[in-house]
């Protein structure tokens, strides 16, 4: 979007304006410089959620390796960044940083924190993997409820240190939503829900582990997605079974072999053995299988995962690659990764700028000085004026009211303003390899149609306003095409 002020430039300008204002305050200057540096760093995505919501599992599933959690790091933030060699450093409070030993395993690595967990604030793990090229993943301690007194809540720190959050919840219950809502007190927080994807984790447990549990979880996610309350908090809602996804990503030939053996047992008989975890581990299966192997399988796949995998093997996914792909697809991990790419990585400039705005706002609110009102004014101006935020707000509005547009128009508007991805092709809904000429035509056509709508006096005001935003997006695309074509 090259029309008007670019959001990243505006954020950069704001940071420097703040630096100038706070030049006498060395601590504030340090914070602001850190924010300026962050603009250039990879996007930070935190995986947060209440106790036992599957944070580390989802993180591992995203990485495709078993790297989390760090043993004993209960209260610490664990940062996973890209690095040349595996390395882990602990940063205890009030003590020098300490190197930790990294034990490589067949499926990933293990880091053990040698001492008491309460003292360590951050652990930075460097791990060479493609998944971390563009993002830094942060594994966070369990979110505690509002009852925890006397310390900065984990959610506050998550929102401060991360550009985007994967918020894990088992079922999107009220108390979890309230934790998220607590982060929306600032002006930046209220501007648009851009930095949170809600993940219904442990989707495999939905419906008591029935075979259609994941489908139900997906429906639930869609229901949450349309819920205005969730809409105000999260940019997307995805159901994902971390354990099944991870198992799928790390499916080895021996795993597949074991599953294939199980699938070979007649269905009714196997079902009886898969009734409970106990029965599966201890019962006498008609095929020979080592109890340790069974326990390992159960541990990795879960009862539901084994049921799903055996059913899949039986229905034709009869080699490791096929089964792995299908498990990943079914687990919702694909959707989650897509959502992360579409909502976070593609919008990294917006997210970075947002973090900068939020940091400046926090600073100004905590330590107001003469002239800081002007900064607040600038922040509000950026939030209200930046086209990215207007698009995001319109997206939310479209999600649960559609502003009175019919389904087709609403879908088109959503696509044009980047609801299905912010690339030109995704916005215009054309094939990826379309020519500039074709893109131009489609964009110009869309712009013309939506301009008519924006200027149609018969339509209600909300619709015209919405249409204006869409027109603006189209203009942006046209400008981009023009700049690229020149």
């Amino acid at each position, binding site marked *: 979007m090259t029309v008007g002020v670019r959001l990243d430039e505006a954020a950069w300008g704001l940071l420097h304006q703040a630096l100038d204002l706070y030049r006498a305050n060395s601590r504030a200057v340090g914070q602001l410089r850190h924010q300026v540096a962050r603009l250039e760093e990879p996007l930070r995505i935190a995986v947060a959620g209440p106790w*036992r919501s599957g944070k580390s599992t989802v993180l591992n599933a995203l990485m495709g390796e078993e790297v989390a959690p760090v043993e004993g790091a209960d209260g610490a933030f664990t940062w996973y960044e890209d690095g040349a060699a595996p390395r882990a450093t602990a940063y205890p409070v009030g003590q020098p940083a300490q190197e930790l030993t990294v034990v490589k395993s067949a499926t990933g690595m293990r880091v053990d924190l040698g001492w008491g967990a309460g003292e360590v604030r951050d652990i930075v793990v460097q791990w060479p993997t493609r998944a971390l090229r563009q993002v830094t993943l942060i594994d966070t301690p369990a979110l505690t409820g509002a009852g925890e007194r006397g310390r900065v809540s984990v959610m506050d720190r998550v929102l401060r240190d991360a550009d985007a959050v994967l918020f894990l919840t088992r079922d999107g219950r009220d108390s979890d939503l309230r934790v998220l809502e607590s982060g929306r007190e600032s002006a930046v927080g209220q501007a648009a829900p851009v930095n949170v994807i809600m993940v219904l984790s442990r989707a495999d447990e939905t419906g008591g582990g029935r075979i259609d549990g994941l489908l139900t979880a997906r429906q639930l996610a869609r229901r949450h997605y349309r819920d205005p309350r969730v809409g105000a908090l999260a940019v997307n809602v995805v159901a994902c079974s971390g354990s099944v996804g991870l198992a799928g990503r790390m499916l080895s030939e021996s795993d597949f072999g074991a599953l294939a053996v199980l699938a070979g047992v007649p269905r009714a008989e196997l079902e009886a053995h898969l*009734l409970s*975890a106990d029965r599966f581990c201890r019962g006498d299966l008609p095929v020979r299988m080592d109890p340790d192997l069974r326990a390992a399988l159960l541990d990795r796949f879960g009862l539901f995962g084994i049921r799903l995998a055996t059913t899949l093997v039986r229905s034709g996914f009869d080699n490791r690659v096929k089964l792995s792909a299908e498990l990943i697809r079914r687990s919702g991990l694909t959707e989650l990764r897509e959502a992360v790419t579409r909502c976070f990585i593609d919008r990294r400039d917006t997210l970075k700028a947002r973090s900068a705005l939020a940091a400046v706002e926090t600073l100004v609110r905590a330590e107001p000085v003469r002239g800081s009102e002007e900064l607040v004014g600038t922040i509000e101006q950026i939030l209200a004026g930046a086209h990215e935020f207007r698009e995001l707000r319109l997206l939310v509005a479209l999600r649960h009211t559609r502003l009175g547009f019919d389904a087709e128009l609403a879908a088109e508007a959503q696509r044009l303003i980047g609801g299905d991805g912010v690339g030109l092709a995704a916005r215009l809904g054309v094939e990826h390899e379309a020519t500039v000429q074709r893109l131009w035509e489609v964009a110009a056509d869309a712009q013309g149609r939506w301009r008519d709508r924006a200027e149609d006096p018969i339509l209600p005001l909300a619709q015209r306003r919405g249409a204006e935003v869409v027109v603006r997006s189209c203009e942006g695309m046209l400008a981009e095409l023009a700049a690229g074509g020149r």
Partner: protein
Amino acid sequence: MAGIWLDVLDEIARTCSAHGRDDLLQTVRQKRTQLLDPKLRVLVIGEPNQGKSQLINAIINAPACPVGDGRTTVLPTVVQHAEAAYAAVAQAPPPAPGRSAGTATVVAVERTPVALNQVAAGVAGTVGRRPGGGPAYVEIGVPRALLGAGMVLVDTPGTDEIAAVGGAGPVASPSRADTVLLVSDSTRELSVTELDMLLHVMRSHPNVVVVQSKTDLVADWRAVAERNRQHLADAGIPAPVIPVSATLRLRAAAADDRALNAESGFPTLIARLQRDMSGKADQLARVAVQAVARTVVEQLAAPLRAELATQEAEEQSGPISRLHAAQREVDELRRCSTRWQNSLNDEVADLLSDIEYDLRDRTRQILRAVDEAFDTADPLVAWDTFQDWLERSLVEAAEANHEWLIQRCDWIARRVAANFARYGYDVLPPWSMTMPEDFGERLPELERPKVDRFTTGQKLFTGMKGSYGGMLMFGLATTLAGMPMINPVSVGIGALFGGKSIRDESKQLLRRRQATVKTAIQRHVDEFFVRVIRDCRDAARQVQRMLRDHFTGLTEELQEAIVQSFRSAKQEADTDAALREQRQREIRLKMTRLAALYEQSQQLSGPRSAPGLLEPRA
């Protein structure tokens, strides 16, 4: 044994009505009805998606409660025995205006039958409920032997907020349940919220069981159960943990597989429920009565304790403090009266000396003027003019002095009155001091002093006397020159000498006259001074006397009022102390009775120490 707990319960009810707590009485009566009812009411609570509905289904082996995904249970569901399966949404009619919501008269609930295939919608709260109505619940009847024996299962909407437990209406309230099952699934240990929820329920309800559901899902459910037991022990919650698997139970029922049923853990749970049911009239009831006694005694004792505490606080602020204030007032008045008397005396003394000095000063100035005037002027010539001036000056001086006196007196009066300002009594006495009209007449008459006039005869005589000497002196001298004794020279000289002695004599006379007049005037002024100053003194003294009388009267008046209030405050304090003493005795007596009642209830299942709140105060 049944009779004994019933007696205690009735005693509790009597105590409630004796304390005038109809609300508690209502609760106790309801509990009584509930305990006499042979049915066992089992309430199932827990966080969302723990499998509460599924648990009920598994207990009765029938898909009575709809299970599914997301938030299915919105309305509490009561599952009970019926000859034929039915379902209905029950709802109390909206509270009629005019009748307060507190009157817990049994309102006939309206039942809307719901088709069995629509139960899910009913439970989700979308069917059969009238908007604006009271709390609604779903009633499901199932023909089952277990239910037929008198068990009623109540499913509640899942919540992770303590405040919301039982919030779905009276049907879902733990106080109306005999057994509470908290459902928590095996995928994790008990959460903080769940433990809090348990503590909350345990306060009013002793019979709680933690049901750990979904044991089929995970392999390490035994470890989880062990840790849950540990958590419960740490939190001091005497609730057993029963791990179950609804899936296995339902499967076992379908396949009629006894081993599988045993594996599901349900036999233990059902045995527990059946034991509760059979023991309801005895063991369960006794425990319930204990809990009721505890709640009621706490509730009754709390206001009494609070009253005791406030009474102590009141002692500082009530009549006693008023008494102290009155005492202080009396002292203050005493100090005030000394103060104003002193200040009156001092001021009047000052006044007198000031006035005297002032008058002295004025008269001295007049005298100085007189001296100056008569150093040159001849009293014979100037007297009349002078007399006028002197009289006028003196009258002026006296008047000015008197005026100042009046001002000073007024000032003194105000000054003294200021002492009474805090009583609002700073009024001046109704007095007025005016300048006497006849000021001039009251002054002493200035008599014309006797002065020697230089008469013509005297002049002649003096001239003769003077000229004689001169003529003789020069006559003798000229005789030496051969001239006669009387010659023109000697006559001339004689005339010259005569003139001179006349002039000398007249000057001397003038000086004498002047001295006489001065002395006379001085005497006159002195006399004037004495008279005026006496008048002033009289006036000042009069004023002093008048002020003293006025303010003494005022002080007495005030004293009377203050002493009166002091007396009434004392009386009030005495009465109040007596009343409070009596009330405290009453409260103590009531507390003792409550403690006895509590003891009695605790005796139902062995002795236990009374809670700290009932121990008598030191």
